[in-house]
C-alpha cells in the first residue's frame, strides 16, 4: 500500500458547491495504475464525510491526467460555507491521503 501523494499530485478547484480534484502522476508510466486503481467509487468512499453528492471521473489519456468532479461537496459553496477553507483549496491533499 502507498499513498497517492507518493506517485501523484493534485489541484483543487471549486464551482459553487462542486469540488473539482485533478490527479496527475509524477511519472506518466504510473497513469495506467491510477486509472486501474482510483475509481470514482473509491474516491467517493475516501471523501464520504466531505462529499455528500456524487463523484464523476474523467480520464484524459492523451494528457495522462484524471479528474474527479464531486457534487454537494463544499458545505453550500464558497460564499455561504462555514468552513475555514470555504473554497476547499486544501482538499487536493485529502485526495492524496488515499492509499492504493
Amino acid at each position, binding site marked *: 500500500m502507498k499513498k497517492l501523494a507518493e506517485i501523484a499530485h493534485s489541484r483543487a478547484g471549486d464551482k459553487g458547491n462542486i469540488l473539482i480534484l485533478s490527479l496527475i502522476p*509524477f511519472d506518466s508510466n504510473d497513469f495506467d495504475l491510477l486509472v486501474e486503481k482510483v475509481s470514482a467509487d473509491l474516491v467517493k468512499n475516501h*471523501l464520504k464525510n466531505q462529499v455528500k453528492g456524487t463523484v464523476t471521473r474523467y480520464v484524459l489519456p492523451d494528457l495522462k491526467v484524471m479528474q474527479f468532479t464531486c457534487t454537494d461537496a463544499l458545505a453550500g459553496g464558497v460564499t455561504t460555507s462555514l468552513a475555514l477553507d470555504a473554497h476547499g483549496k486544501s482538499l487536493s491533499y485529502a485526495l492524496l491521503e488515499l492509499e492504493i
Partner: protein
Amino acid sequence: MKEKIRIGCGAGFSGDRIEPALILTEKGDLDYLILECLAERTIALAQKRKLQNPDLGYDVLLEKRISGLLPLLLKNKTRLITNMGAANPIAGAKKIIELAKEQGLKVKVAAVFGDDVFSFLSGDEYSLENDIPIYSYGKLVSANAYLGVEAILPALATDVDIIITGRVADPSLFLAPMIYEFGWEVDDFEKMGKGTVLGHLLECAGQITGGYFADPISKPIPDMHILGHPFVDVFKDGHGVISKVEGTGGAITPQTTKEQLLYEVLDPFHYFTPDVIADFSSVKIEEISKNQIQIKGGGGNSKPETYKVSVGYEAGFRGTGEISYAGAHAVERGELAAEIMRLRLKDKIQNLKIDLIGMNSLHPSEFSKESQPYEVRLRVTGMCDSLSLAQEIGEEVEALYTNGPAGGGGARKYVEQVVGVISTLLERDQVKPGIQLFSA
C-alpha cells in the same frame, strides 16, 4: 493582420500581488496585459459599494494597480484589458482618466457595460444550484451576466489604450485580442476553443508559474518570493508558447500546466464559456525549453445558447470566534472547549460549525486520527439572521478565557455580513453590451 501576439496576465484574482504585473509590463515586451480581478462574489460586494456611492463600485485596488502601470503601458504601447470595472466600469474608466491627469499622461479608455442585468430579472428565474426560484434565497442585491468576446471586440476596434469591463468570462479577456489581431471569425469554434485553452491557462496568473503548486518535498519551485507571472505568444493558427520574464522566480513546466488546465473545470470535454463549449481533452503540452511550454490542440464545435448570470443575495451574518490551546492535553482541552461552546450556543444558533484547527478544520476528522499536534486552535462559526446574534459567537469564545478549560490563549472574534451567490441563465437577446469612451 498579425502572425503572432504576446499577451501577459498580471493578476489572477482581486487580491493578487502588484509587482509581477509591473515587471511583465516593463520587461515582457507585451502587446496586451490582462488583469483578471473578479471572483464570484466580488461583484456583489462592489454592487453594495455602488449603492452607497454611485462613483464607486469598481475594484478597490484599481488606483493602486493602475497608478504604477499607466506610464509603463503607455511607454511600451501595451494595451490593457481588465475586469476591474466590477459593478461600475464607467466609474472605473473615469477614475483611470483622473489618475492619468494627475500624472500628466494622455490615455484613452473604453468602458464595457451591459453585464448588469439586475433590472431584467423578476426573481422567478430558477437557480442552477437548487432548481428553486432565486427570490427564495433572500433579498437579491446584484445580477451580472458573464459576457463574452463580443462585448470587448467593439472596444478593441477603437484606438483606446485601456479596456475596462465588469463581468466577462475570464478566458474571453484573452480570446478577444486574438480574434481582433488575427481576424478569426467568432463562429470558428475550433479557434475559439484553442484561444480559450490559452486564456484559461493564463487567467490565474501565478498559478501556472508555480503558485498554488509548490511543495518543497514533492514539487519544489525556485525563488517563490519573486514568483513571475506568465505571458503567452499566440500564433495565428491558435497554438501558443507560455513563458515568463527572465530573472523572475517560479517555473512553468508540463506539471504546472496540467494542474492549471483542469483547474475549476467541471468537465474537460465540455468547458462552457459565452464564446464556445471547448474541448480540453485534446490539448498537447510540450516543454520546448526551460520555462517554455508549447500548447497545441484543443478545440470546440458550438457555443451555449444562454448567458450564465451570477446573482448575489443577502445571506445573513457570519460570526466567528477562535482560541488556542498548547502543550499537555492540548487536543483534549480543545475538545472540552468545543463541547462547552456547543452546549452554550446550540439553542440559539442552528447553523453552527465547531472545529479544532490542527485536527479537523480543513479535512474530515478521520484524516487526523493518528495525529497529535502540539497546539490546536478552537474555531466556532455560525450563520445568523442578525448582527447581534452573530456577535454572541465570538463573545462566548472569548469568555472561555475565564469560563473554559486551562491555558486558553489568543482569543479573536469577528463578524461579517454575507453575500451569497447563485446562478441562473438568460437568453442571449436579453443581454445588450455596449461601450463608452473616455480620454485624458
